[in-house]
């Protein structure tokens, strides 16, 4: 018997196959299966497919997923700075620098002597010339410094005794080459240039002397090294020659022995 409500009706077939739906419907379909060979065969084959499907297992794998909360980073003391906008940070930095400069009485000068930076704290000791603060390192022992110091000392002495001594006496106490009191600015500058020129000449001479000494030392060392190398080569040559002679002697001996 064929019942169009049951035969090939997926709704009924699937409900029965998966044991779903009301019990009365299932009982009714079972009664139909007893009479309908086609539906019975369909159900049997679908059950077989379901049974076959149990053979399909997923590939073995290791699953170790876990949710891990990372601890929140500790807030640093200056952490709030990072949340500040860049313009605000720049403004704050400028304000701090400005206040600090104001409090310290910062004085920045740039002239022919170069850049000079002074603070208010240094003013009491400000008798020191600014140029001295920026004098290049290594110039303390320059040859012209002694001449300049002598000139400076002479000038101080002259200032300390204004008009007390006659010009003759001043002239007699003045060391040779030191300008007299009545010297004009141009003369003074010319004198300074002369001193600097003399100092440069002396420095050049000293440099030339030093260079000559260095060249001589290098040459001496080179000669000594060459002599040592030549000695070494001679020894090696002698040893090689001896070895060659020994070899030759051995070859001759072997030839003689083989010809017998």
């Amino acid at each position, binding site marked *: 018997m064929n019942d169009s409500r049951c035969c090939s009706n*997926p709704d009924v077939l699937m*409900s029965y196959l998966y044991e779903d739906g009301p019990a009365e419907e299932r009982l009714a379909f079972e009664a139909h299966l007893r009479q309908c060979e086609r539906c019975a065969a369909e159900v049997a084959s*679908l059950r077989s497919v379901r049974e076959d499907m149990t053979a399909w297992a*997923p590939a073995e794998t290791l699953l170790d997923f876990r*949710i891990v909360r990372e601890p929140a980073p500790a807030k640093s003391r200056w952490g709030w700075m990072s949340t500040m906008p860049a313009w605000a940070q720049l403004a704050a930095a400028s304000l701090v620098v400005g206040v600090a400069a104001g409090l310290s009485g910062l004085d920045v000068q740039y002239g022919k002597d170069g850049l000079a930076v002074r603070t208010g704290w240094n003013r009491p000791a400000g008798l020191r010339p600014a140029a001295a603060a920026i004098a290049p390192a290594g110039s303390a022992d320059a040859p012209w410094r002694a001449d300049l110091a002598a000139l400076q000392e002479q000038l101080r002495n002259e200032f300390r005794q204004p008009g007390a001594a006659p010009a003759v006496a001043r002239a007699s106490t003045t060391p040779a080459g030191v300008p007299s009191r009545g010297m004009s600015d141009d003369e003074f500058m010319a004198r300074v240039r002369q001193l600097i020129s003399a100092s440069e000449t002396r420095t050049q001479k000293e440099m030339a002397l030093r260079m000559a000494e260095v060249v001589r030392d290098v040459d001496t060392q080179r000669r000594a090294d060459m002599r040592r190398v030549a000695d070494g080569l001679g020894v090696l040559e002698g040893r090689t020659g001896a070895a060659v002679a020994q070899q030759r002697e051995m070859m001759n001996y072997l030839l003689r022995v083989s010809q017998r």
Partner: protein
Amino acid sequence: MRGGQTGPPDRQETCGERVEMTVTDEELVARSIAGDTDSFNQLILRWERPIYALAYRQLGREDDARDVVQDAFLRAFRALPGFKGEAKFSSWLYRITLNLCRDVMRRAKRAPFVPTPEGVDIADMASSDRSATESIEDVVTRKDLGRHVARAMSLLPEEQRSAIILKEYHGLTFQEIAELQGCPLSTVKTRLYQGLTVLRRELDRRGMGPSRAESRTP
């Protein structure tokens, strides 16, 4: 769903590890929403095997399935505050997983990958999934049949395949599948019937079908 709300229902995909089952999914979800990460990790432990099995059968590739499992739980964890409990946690998780699988398949624009039947490894046959009463020959036959089933399943359209997988391996009700697939109940049954019919034909064609089954039944 078989097993209700306390844990994974499936006959095959239950966790290998022993999981505390006295706490329901809803309780664990509530605790997780309150900030208890350990509770969510218990949910992962409880559901990672079924979710992996679903993804594996949908995609047919182990590494893809693992990625999907990881993404699914991560997505669920992030979306947990928005989970109102209108659906079961497992259904929600299945939905996320199916969507991710669909994305993977769409990206790859390919049908599920199925391992080739050849290359049967005897050492693999004798592995731990062999029951005490099962001989090596039985294991080889079962694995071979499993590969043929996988191949036949890969021929099905995605809707039919997921309907069969959810019903056969995860024990979802028709209604749950209908909600997951967003279709009427009758459509789910039709998809199941059509899918099973294709499987029967394919297995028959490979000499693995009901005719063989008849010969093996006493």
